[in-house]
């Protein structure tokens, strides 16, 4: 089920209503049934694959906790990680490896070919696999008690708001909330609904609008020039942000209505002054997952400088690969890792020279713009259909020529709507970043101002939103 579908607009109030009318002891069961229904809207029988992952990690958690022998503990953890990851490897990465092996065989003249698997990727597989893994790792590290109730553990992995695109929760934050009694709380309901509304604005008005132009350009890359790709890439930067942050807002908001507090996933990432800061504000639940479970496991900052840079780079390459089984994502991850290493060198250099006034408005502005431009370059690899295409686009971007493509006739309005929607979003983000306590409309002290502000936002979505638009981009991961 899509958050931007009418099915969800019926599903959400029904589930929320049932949640509050049912006694606490039945709520988890109802939420589990609702989450199964939510997931089965895509490909119903894939619920069994999810069931396998849940069962493996549930049993592993209990065994790891029970076992005293550290070697056995480690063995159970390894078995759990391998078997959970195997599902991910088969569905997501097997064909990628096969294609590459076949290509290499052809290159060296071997008459060798393995057939690819005809499988559809289960929706949100990488998200719930990582969420499940984080539980087993935390139990192994002794930071989380193993969950004895199989139903509640299943709900931890399957909780419908974050089942298919995160935020990737940690057991310490989410699991205990299913045991807690949630009373109807006006503030939670109000905050949750407002956050959902903002998510719908981001998705329907900004992301889906921008996608019309982005798809028109990126899906016909041969026919467009550098200037057009600059505009399309800027649009894509906001499309991907609003698509994913919009989803996260709806997810966090719909959980909050029932009193569940999910972790923040985005914090105005395009207001970042460095790439390092960008990754503290972008897809926070994934960045911290990789930090906690991969980067730190590799040695983190407690190793030699060279090893640290290597670990950083590897973490980002793996993060890229997590997004998709394609070289474009690997390059995207690698490029981000490279930026971060470069950032460390840059900081050392300027700290030695001590010439920068970091607090000056000019320095803040140039840092934000530079970071945004660097991020946009990485988005080319994220959006392009192939690596060859991505490099061609980069070449075109750095040699701009000709006029920016504008669709003919009535279609010209699509990029104009997108442009105004993006400008509005930027204005709101700047206001929240730099003038949070000023010009308050949505959090105004006067109730009437708040009511009118939210009514206006709904009408704005009705007037400018793209309805029946596409899926959320991150579902494919």
């Amino acid at each position, binding site marked *: 089920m899509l958050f931007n579908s*009418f099915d969800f607009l019926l599903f959400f109030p029904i589930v929320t209503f049932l949640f509050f009318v049912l006694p606490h002891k039945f709520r988890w069961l109802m939420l589990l049934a609702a989450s199964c229904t939510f997931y089965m809207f895509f490909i119903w029988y894939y619920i069994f694959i999810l069931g396998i992952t849940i069962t493996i990690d549930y049993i592993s958690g209990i065994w790891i906790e029970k076992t005293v022998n550290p070697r056995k503990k480690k063995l159970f953890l390894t078995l759990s990680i391998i078997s959970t990851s195997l599902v991910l490897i088969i569905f997501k990465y097997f064909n990628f490896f096969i294609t590459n092996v076949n290509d290499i065989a052809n290159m060296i003249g071997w008459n060798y070919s393995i057939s690819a698997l005809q499988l559809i990727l289960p929706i949100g597989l990488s998200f719930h696999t990582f969420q499940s893994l984080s539980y087993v790792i935390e139990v192994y590290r002794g930071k989380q008690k193993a969950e004895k109730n199989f139903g509640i553990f299943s709900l931890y992995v399957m909780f419908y708001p974050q089942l298919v695109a995160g935020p990737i929760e940690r057991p310490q934050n989410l699991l205990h909330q299913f045991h807690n009694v949630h009373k109807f709380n006006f503030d939670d309901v*109000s905050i949750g609904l407002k956050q959902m509304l903002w998510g719908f604005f981001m998705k329907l008005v900004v992301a889906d609008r921008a996608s019309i132009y982005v798809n028109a350009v990126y899906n016909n890359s041969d026919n467009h020039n550098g200037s057009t790709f600059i505009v399309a890439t800027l649009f894509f930067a906001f499309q991907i942000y609003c698509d994913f942050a919009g989803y996260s807002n709806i997810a966090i908001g719909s959980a909050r209505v029932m009193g569940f507090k999910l972790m923040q996933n985005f914090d105005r990432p395009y207001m970042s002054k460095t790439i390092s800061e960008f990754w503290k504000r972008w897809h926070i639940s994934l960045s911290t997952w990789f930090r906690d479970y991969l980067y730190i496991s590799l040695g983190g900052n407690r190793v030699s400088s060279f090893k640290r840079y290597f670990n950083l780079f590897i973490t980002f390459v793996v993060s890229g690969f997590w997004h998709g089984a394609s070289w474009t994502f690997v390059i995207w991850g690698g490029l981000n890792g490279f930026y971060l290493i470069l950032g460390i060198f840059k900081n050392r250099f300027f700290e030695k020279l001590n010439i920068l006034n970091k607090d000056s408005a000019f320095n803040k502005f140039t840092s934000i713009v530079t970071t945004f431009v660097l991020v946009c370059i990485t988005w080319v690899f994220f959006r392009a259909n192939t690596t060859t295409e991505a490099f061609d686009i980069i070449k075109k971007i750095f040699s701009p020529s000709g006029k920016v493509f504008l669709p003919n006739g009535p279609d010209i*309005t699509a990029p104009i709507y997108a442009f105004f929607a993006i400008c509005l979003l930027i204005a709101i983000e700047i206001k929240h970043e730099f003038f949070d306590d000023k010009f308050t409309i949505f959090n105004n002290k006067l109730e009437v101002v708040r009511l009118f502000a*939210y*009514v206006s936002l709904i*009408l704005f979505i*009705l*007037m400018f*939103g793209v309805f*029946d638009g596409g899926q959320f981009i991150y579902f494919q991961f």
Partner: protein
Amino acid sequence: MEYRRFFIQLVKFIIILIVFDIVIGLSMRHLFFSQTSGKYYRISYPLEKTTDSLIIFGSSRANRHYSPSILTKETGVSCYNAGMQGKNIVFTDAIQKVILTRHKPKMIILDINPHELLENPVQYDKLGDLIPYYFKYEELLRPYINKKSKYENIKLLSITYQYNSTILHILKYKFLPQKDDNGYLPVKGTNIKIGKEELKESKNQSVKNIDNYFAESLESFIKRSKDLKIPIILVVSPMYKSNLKNDDKSFNLIKKIANKYNVQILNYLNSPEFDNPELFFDALHLNNVGSKKFSEKFAQDLKNIFLIKDNITAE
């Protein structure tokens, strides 16, 4: 206590929302129907005002290819070009259905693309352009609106939503009115890249299947005209170097439906007179020079074959 507080706030919010929706929606409706040119006006005019004897229906190929002033001059019959850019037979069927409840033209021309009946899901989204007219022609348009999405009726409870994404068009044509010749909008110049576009086009079409609803729409379009005894003719206007195969499933079905209702098809697809890139804007559309030439040619054929045969007198 918390529930009570929530419901009071919710009721307040819903009341304000409904009031604002009505005020903004009705203002948008007023602006929408006060347009005097542009994309939506070219839908509104035939739906509500045209009294012309000859109405041309079809997609952008109809819109770009038939000059009503030339057709009127040559045949003496008043003409309106109701070809809609980017739309196919489903949209065309809907507007013909509405027009014929109000006005009975003396003849109908349907410009049809040989690939018209092939799957093209985008065409269902394009039925959204009918939404602003839904409040006026609810019964007539409901089947088409329902094809757009199963929950469209619920969304249409909002008046503001009925004018979704129309404001820029309204403002654009308010300040920069668009001139057309009774609906006809020619394009100038040529973008023909010889040997490229037509091949690309045929490759894409060969893998698609027939959309049964498109075929039903064509049949309903023809049947409606026949039931009202309005002479109808199907025209395949020129394309640049079309490599349409003899076994083309879409065109064969079009011919089969036309035969069933005894409707003539005039096929100019690869007419030698139009085998000239200078006459085309792209592989699918004639430019202003080509459409002028085509309109003259078509008017002559219409006079010779159609007007005389069916004894339709000039005005």
